[in-house]
């Protein structure tokens, strides 16, 4: 999914055109559309009356603002120590196997993008991952296919 003009206008209307709103605008757009195209960045820059380079520099700084194409659903898997100790490696492999892609990649059907994330602060229920805005804890490799199926209507 790419950003469209209406989306951009709606998000900017919500946050306003102040310079300070830039991070929030870019993050919201990125979450809605999955990622920001160069055209979307230019539109935001024009609307906020900022140089395009400045908008790009902010967008590329934050890990939750995507400037590369990604799938409809984004999986962010915690790679930090407490989840690692709790068996995260096996879940990590299960994700790669189930989806047939490596971390950092997107499935060919553009359904899924698999990304690592830093600590989600849910270490007591690790291993943990976030799919879009939903959080899943106490993961085991066995749970992965069933959880993914919830997003694809059963044909993951």
């Amino acid at each position, binding site marked *: 999914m790419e950003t469209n003009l209406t989306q951009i206008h709606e998000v900017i209307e919500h946050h306003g055109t102040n310079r300070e709103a830039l991070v929030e605008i870019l993050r919201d757009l990125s979450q809605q559309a999955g990622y920001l195209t160069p055209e979307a960045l230019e539109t935001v820059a024009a609307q906020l009356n900022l140089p395009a380079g400045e908008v790009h520099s902010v967008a590329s700084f934050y890990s*939750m*603002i995507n400037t590369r194409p990604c799938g409809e659903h984004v999986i962010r898997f915690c790679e930090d*120590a*407490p989840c690692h100790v709790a068996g995260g490696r096996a879940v990590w492999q299960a994700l790669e196997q189930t989806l047939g892609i490596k971390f950092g990649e997107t499935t060919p059907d553009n359904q899924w993008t698999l990304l690592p994330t*830093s600590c989600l*602060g849910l*270490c007591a229920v690790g291993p943990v991952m976030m799919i879009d805005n939903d959080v899943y804890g106490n993961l085991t490799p066995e749970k992965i296919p069933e959880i993914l199926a919830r997003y694809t209507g059963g044909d993951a």
Partner: protein
Amino acid sequence: MVYRAHVLISGEPRCLAKGAQEVERALLTRLHELRIADEVQVVEVGSLGHGEQGPELVIYPEGTHYVNLTPEDAALIVEEHLLKGRPVEKLRYQEPPSEPLPPPSPKEIRVVLKNVGKIDPENIEDYIICDGYEALAQALTEMTPEEVIAELQVSGLRGRGGAGFPTWLKWSFARKADGDKKYLICNGDEGDPGAFMNRRVLEGDPHAVIEGMVIAAYAIGAQQGYFYVRAEYPIAIHTLRVAIQQARDYGLLGKDIFSSGFDFDLEIRMGAGAFVCGEETALMQSIEGERGMPRTRPPFPAVSGLWGCPTNINNVETYANVPQIIRKGGAWFASMGTEKSKGTKTFAIAGKVKRTGLIEVPLGITLREIVYDIGGGILNDKKFKAVQTGGPMGGCIPEQYLDLPVDYETLASVGSIMGSGGFVVMDEDTCMVDIARFFMEFTQDESCGKCTPCRVGTRRMLEILDNICEGKGQPGDIERLETLAGYVTAGSLCGLGQGAPNPVLSTIQHFRDEYEAHIYDKKCPAKVCKGLIEYIIDADACIGCTRCARNCPVNAITGKPKEVHVIDPEACIRCGICKQVCPVEAVHVE
């Protein structure tokens, strides 16, 4: 008539507004079409508990809860669940992962966590019943700003974000700074791996933090506040949003609070995934909509912060302490803790202890008490090796210091820091070089790139550590790490760069023999580093069951059934699967 299933559909206003009636109609239509309408009873009820995700319904006897429904979803549920007996997973309500707070152990004192898990965080009245907002009323109606700051001084409260700067002093700098407009910020960008103290406070007792912020704003004379929370904490952000709105509705935020003439309001700003934004100057850059890169200090935020105005910035836990200090008095707070470190501190205990999770203890408690009395000792009764405090900028403390008291100065004296409250316990199976490498990988990744010594220096340090762990360590590597560490610390603007070498320096300080074993003997004493270990099958123990050979992902194991098997060290990738599957424990790590 006996029904085989009952469908309860919510008719509360929020669900109706989002089309609950259409959903119900679609449900009934499909039931009739499939001729099962007389087997299923449909009842319209009041709330089912998750109206914010309406329309919603629950199907009994299973008790399956479906949310966010459209008429098409309803038809699908009839076909799949009610006709074929297959619950529709993608429409089911998701319980957020629950983590109940266990009762405190005898060594714990709950001040910051006193309400967490006990009150409904989305109901301000629960907080008010527990003496909430009493301190704010007291401060605004009976105390001058100077008196509030004086009470904080008596309490001895120090910043809970890591550095431990006296809170009263910070506030008095901001109070005295010139400027008509002053800002107040709460730093909720908790990012240390394994540290989740602030998240639990925000999710469990948001009003305590808000009340602490309003009191602080009154003390320094700020009218506008920002709550910076990392976007990785969606539940905390939701709870906080509800809490701020309720505080506004009750007149506890906004104009003329408690008819005192004091105005203050709060806005939430979400991060976008950058660890360095927990650093105060980077955080302010991020609020202004810029790349979150630190800048030089001085000028300190108290003089020139957000948009160049005087700004006070404290951590979540610091603010959460404030209401009780005002209500019970600074002397009460100062009665807990040590001479220079007063009060309590929350820690997230993780790693190889029997009981992990969130605790709150009076400062001055010993490391041993936390590990053994509260943590229950080492998992599987293995040998304690070290505890890592302070997150990626902290250090590892070995066994000989277990009886030291936990306070800011003592932790610093043994090469670590208090930090925000990460507490990772390691046992004899942990390789200290590998741990140092892990944290260096983290800081290297999170370095914002502004200061060259941090950007390049951490990468060079990581390369050396990678080499050591892979068995390619060279004589002189330890000294090179120490030299680089000095450059990185001296040449970086912010705490991230200055603290990045700490895990390496503290492990060299306390576990130099492990580094030497890696470099000179090409051995990893904890048998962790893959480049330095070898899996070997004990010929006397092997029963030739072939299980290891069948499970080896790279076919590195040869041997006929009922004969001794052999691992080819060249082909072996040291995944350890053979060791896990061997029924007679014949696989050893050398």
